[in-house]
């Protein structure tokens, strides 16, 4: 199986470190691209800005998207992903601190595939990451590329 990219959109370096650690501990070996705000995430996805000219045939197999982000927030990133033909079928997992009803509803309304709240206890955090990887990278059949 081809190891595709995981796009981690996360502004907090500690969360980034913990997530990477958890992914590693879950034996997920996919390349991980980290975008530290919404603009960076969109640049990567649409080959703009710092990512201008990147190979657009390669799209992430899973996007872990935080909601609270500088510049362009997670919901806006999600909206743009779903609005564009090139990205609309990508699996997007909202991976965030909050379990506010408002966030859940908006996320699903905009077409999130999954919503996982980051657990405080690291064992649970690890378990959540492991299951996400197992599900979206192994079990789930992605939409065929265009």
């Amino acid at each position: 199986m081809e190891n595709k990219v995981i796009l981690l959109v996360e502004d907090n370096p500690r969360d980034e470190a913990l997530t990477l650690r958890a992914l590693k501990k879950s034996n997920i070996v996919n390349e991980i691209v980290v975008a530290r705000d919404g603009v960076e995430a969109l640049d990567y996805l649409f080959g703009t800005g710092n990512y201008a000219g990147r190979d657009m045939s390669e799209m992430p197999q899973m996007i872990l998207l935080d909601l609270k982000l500088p510049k362009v927030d997670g919901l806006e990133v999600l909206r743009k992903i779903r609005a564009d033909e090139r990205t609309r079928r990508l699996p997007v997992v909202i991976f965030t601190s909050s379990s506010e009803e408002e966030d859940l509803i908006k996320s699903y309304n905009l077409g999130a595939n999954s919503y996982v709240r980051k657990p405080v206890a690291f064992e649970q955090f690890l378990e959540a990451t492991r299951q996400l990887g197992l599900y979206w990278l192994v079990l789930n059949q992605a939409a065929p590329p265009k």
Partner: protein
Amino acid sequence: MAGVAKAMYSSNWTARAEEALRRSQEQLAGIIGSAMDAIITVDGEQRIVLFNAAAEKMFHCPAEEAIGHSLERFIPERFRATHQGHIQSFGRTNVSRRTMGALGAIFGLRTDGEEFPIEASISQLESEGQKFYTVILRDITERKHAEEALRASEARFSIAFNASPISSVIATLDEGRYVAINDTFLNWTGYTREEVIGRTSAELELWPTSEARAKVIHLLLTQGRIRNRETRYQMRNGEVRIFLMSADIIELDGQPHLITASIDITERKRAEEALKEQSQILDLAPVLIRDLDGRLLFWNTGAEQMYGWKPEEALGKTTHSLLHTEFPQPAEEIQATLFAQGHWKGELVHTRRDGERIVVASHWVLHRNELGERDVVLEVNSDITARKQAEEEIRRLNEELEQRVAERTAQLQTTNKELEAFSYSVSHDLRAPLRHINGFSQALLEDYADKLDAEGQGYLQQVRSASQEMAQLIDDVLELARVTRSEMRREAVNLSAKARAVVDDLQKTDAVRRVKVHIEDGLQAHGDKRLLKIMLINLLGNAWKFTARQEAAEITFGQQQRDGEAVYFVRDNGAGFDMAYANKLFGAFQRLHSSSEFEGTGIGLATVQRIVHRHGGRVWAEGKVNQGATFYFTLANSKERRNGE
């Protein structure tokens, strides 16, 4: 004296005797000549020998033409034979004098042929062997006329008395004994004639009091008569009716009598009373009447009281200038409505005499005369200033209230938004550092375990569990805030099913526990299902938690009726609590157990209480240490539920 010279006498008395006789004859002749009655003397052959002045006047015949002639010419022909007979039979008697009236009506005959009634007396005298008869005659034509007139008058009076539509009574003045009564009296009083005649008014109890009659008699005696005096009489059936009575004193058979005429004015009086009452009522409402030019024709007491203008000041003035009428619409339009529909209703502003402006509810009615022409306008006004002021005050207060409510709502909305933003921020930002503390502590334990002794590793575990507790605390506080501010959506909720789902979840997360759970079937409530579920999670979660050390743990969820109210309860046989602290149970962050005994944040029951209160219910608990606890709650009562939210 011509009369004396005409008297004829033959005599041969002595000179002295002649002188005496002459004087006596002169005196007699004087008497005869000046007598009011006709005096005629005839001899035995009915030839007239004396005919005085009164006779001349009576028969329209001078003495010269009468003397020496027969008396017959002064007697109507049909009586002549009778008269002859009467005289002769009288002559044969020894009676010197007789009244002729006793023999029946006798008549005289004047020279012009007119007959007339006379009263006569006759006397006879024999002188020198010759009979002389002297008649004294009185013309009674006038008296006869007077008698006729009196008779006719009496007849007319009798008819008038009896046929009068006025109750008439004649009674004795002293004791009121009835002498005559008319039919009207009988009709009105209800008595029969037999019951009344000969009896007294006191016996009939006609006068309501004896003083009433005494007073009338007194008035009559002092004033001579009474006219139109209002009097009360008692009818045969006991009813007292009001009469207008006039009375006079008349003499009958030499006795003073009372004659009264009375009319029954009871109905009129009642009508007057009613009218008076009506007018008094009418006086309460200001009423004015004006002609089509607006000039005031009528201004009652009510109008005077309301506006302060006396009738004499108001009458003749133009209504709307006197009252400075302010119309709600052009006066022409009002006039048009009045003429078209016959009336108009509306609110006007008037200015009183003292300058105060008042608001009146005005009702105008157009009156037409008998020809159907517009005549006058009747205007009835009532002062509604106070009402208008009250209305205005209410409107102002309402506006103020609305304004205040709007302000408060805006404030609340702002506060709510701030709270939401705060909660959101807490939810996102407060948890992240905890997660980091926990995660990096774990990383330290994993990656650097060899550099830390058991004690150091133990400390790091403490750091980790502290961060987890804090995360839980944050979640609970956020839920409490959410329970308070979230919108309520009431619907029918199956509490039994909800409770079962909660217990199933508890069992899943704590698979090793064996708890006997009894959930009563069909427990229904009307409320917000999300909030009610949070409530059950907390109550059943508590029961689950506090029975952890019980070997045969039991939890019951059921319902009782207390005073007609549905009371739900969650009972367990767990650790229980000391009732002395029962009041602390529902406060946020209040705990009756140490964390080492039972973990928890102390927010669960505060959340339960908020949910119950938001549903308009009550929550309380009963328990004993180590003998379990029962939590009771009610939701909005059935009455509130029927009325909806």
